[in-house]
């Protein structure tokens, strides 16, 4: 079975993964502390554009990846809108009480969830696991023990997907009724886990048999350094944040500058 998705590797793939991680985590916290909805909307839009054109994935894949985050956006925004507090009532029906304040707060929270989701997507879509863990070992001194364990686990995922498919067929063949979330989970989880645990233990033994010690001196097949794309990366995100802030403050969509 083929789980590969055709993609074009953009320059974001070439940036140092550790640096990218740090920059995006910093942005993550920055987004938490933006209280001006105008700025936040701009940030979200900018990240959305980057998500669409900077990750190199085809449009249909992007659509399906984005869909759950869009649903999170709608659900957080709407629940905040309908059950929030405020003085300027727009609409009231039973428990539902929409006020101007709660409406804008809802929009704000929704965009915040969206921006955080997009940051995560951009990072995970443009970072290959092998360079990421090599970089974490080289730049952030992650212990090889953890790095290679993660990489081994990543290798197990496609194997598990194939097994999942096979179990599905096997259960159909036996005439197992395809209902009941709990019994279904048990039917899939037990064979999948028993295989994976055994396989993981064997891989661990095989790794040690290849003189892997988990710590100590080692050389690296890939040396992950820094280059011009790292400057681009920092510049891009700095410009993005500055522009979002500038436009948001000077050309606001709405007159509220702080939703608190």
């Amino acid at each position, binding site marked *: 079975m083929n789980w590969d998705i055709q993609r074009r590797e953009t320059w974001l793939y070439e940036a140092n993964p550790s640096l990218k991680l740090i920059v995006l985590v910093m942005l993550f916290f920055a987004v938490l502390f933006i209280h001006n909805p105008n700025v936040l909307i701009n940030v979200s839009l900018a990240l959305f554009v980057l998500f669409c054109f900077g990750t190199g994935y085809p449009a249909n894949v992007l659509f399906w990846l984005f869909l759950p985050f869009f649903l999170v956006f709608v659900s957080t925004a709407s629940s905040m809108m309908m059950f929030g507090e405020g003085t300027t009532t727009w609409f009231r029906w039973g428990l539902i009480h929409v006020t101007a304040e709660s409406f804008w707060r809802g929009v704000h929270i929704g965009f915040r969830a969206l921006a955080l989701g997009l940051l995560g997507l951009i990072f995970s879509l443009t970072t290959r*696991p*092998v360079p990421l863990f090599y970089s974490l070992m080289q730049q952030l001194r992650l212990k090889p023990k953890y790095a*290679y364990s993660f*990489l*081994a686990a*990543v*290798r197990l995922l*496609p*194997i598990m997907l194939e*097994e999942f498919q*096979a*179990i599905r*067929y*096997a*259960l*159909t*063949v*036996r*005439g*197992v*009724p395809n209902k009941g979330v709990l019994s279904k989970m048990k*039917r899939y989880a037990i*064979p999948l886990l*028993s*295989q994976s645990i*055994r*396989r993981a233990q*064997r*891989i*661990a*033994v*095989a*790794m*040690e*048999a*290849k*003189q*892997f*010690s988990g710590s100590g*001196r*080692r*050389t*690296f*097949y890939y*040396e992950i350094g820094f280059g011009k794309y790292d400057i681009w990366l920092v510049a891009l995100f700095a410009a993005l944040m500055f522009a979002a802030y500038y436009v948001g403050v000077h050309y606001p969509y709405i007159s509220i500058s702080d939703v608190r």
Partner: protein
Amino acid sequence: MKQAIAIDRLRLKFPGSDGLLFRDLSLSIAEGEKVLLLGPSGCGKSTLLQVMAGIIPHSIDVPMKAERLKRPERWGYVFQDPDAQFCMPYADEEIAFALENRSVPRHEMPVRIRALLNQVGLEIAPHTDIHTLSGGMKQRLALASVLALEPDVLFLDEPTALLDEEGTKAVWQTVKKVGRGKTVIIVEHKIDHVLDFVDRIVLFGRDGRIIADGEAKAVFSDYKDVIAAEGIWYPGVWDDYDRTARQRTRHQGEELLRLDRFRGFRGREAKIYVPKATVHAGEWIAVTGKNGAGKSTLLHALMQLIRTDGEYMLLGADIKRQHPIYRHIAFVFQNPEWQFVAHSVREELAYSLRLEGRPEAEIEETITRLLREFDLVEQQDQHPYQLSVGQKRRLSVAASIVAGQRLFLLDEPTFGQDAKNTFALLAMLESYREQGAAIIMVTHDEQIVRRFATRRWVVEDGALVRDERLAAVEPVLAEGGTWR
């Protein structure tokens, strides 16, 4: 000669088991020797191999004691499961992992990786996704990454148990080439390709004691009965089987299945095409073809696990009106564990019958009969996962055919089985065929095709390209005479 490995009075016990696995076992192996460890499954050969390498107790903690233990300093170990010895996604990265562990300078790595791939005869680009390799190629890659450690001693723990014939051959050819000048210690059940390579055989008994130890040819001929009784695949095993095989009776019955311009789809793509084919009761059809040709897809299409179009008549009616299909066709997967749904062997057999609401008395009767037929009486209360490889396979077949289906689809059912289990399984299938079932079986094993199949379907590039009666079988069958 210098000793590569020496063990004096080894005692070892697995936690939770009663009794020692080894009681005062002593063994020494000289440098450059090629040794084959033989014995029944569960006798501790693999454990001993792990003790010699130091995996026990360094990586796997098992209580053990020995008066003297000399282990090699530089060694490499190839394991049985091709999917459970790599930690990196790409071939070059996997070999590099071993080089990194030895602190080989980075600039030397690409050259060495290419040389190692060359050495094991893998003609692939170094940066190839391991997931796309066949089992035989994966095992040779494992060998390459082990050779990156520059070992003096090679430990091979059933490296071809999960490979087809072609992969098995390629792996042993490679081992013969790269093993020159090294000490090689092998545990293996399929010894046809190994016998002319090893110079010494150590034969273990069921209790973990050494029965015989000496020059390979001598041990093999002196202890052939013991070796045969343990289900080991030795050269000439099929000839011996033929001598004991009983008569086969002909049974060509009514048409069970008819296909006409039949296609099976994965996603939007047609992955298998059958122009025309029929299957009659009493036929044994071997589906053969290269890896990835579409043999399993054909079975999936017949079982309606994937979308199909074209004509498909089953037992005289259109397939769409034969729902649910598992009442008419039994399907056996390559890995028996995937199919298990119950918590004991008994319940596993009863599952399909209970689902159909058959009366309890009938269920009891059927189960008792199947337990006996498939030699699982003693295991009836065990959890299916606790069974041996052979027992699991037998149970998966028994549980699939329990509903009295006329048509059996089997995807490499003899894969990874020892000779004894293979013969037992084939005999069971044969008895069902004689009673009027039809068997469609994917297999790589020409020996089985030659002896059991009445017809062969050849699948190539996603299409059934040849449907041939096996001439060697036909006259014998027509007379109902003796086999051979």
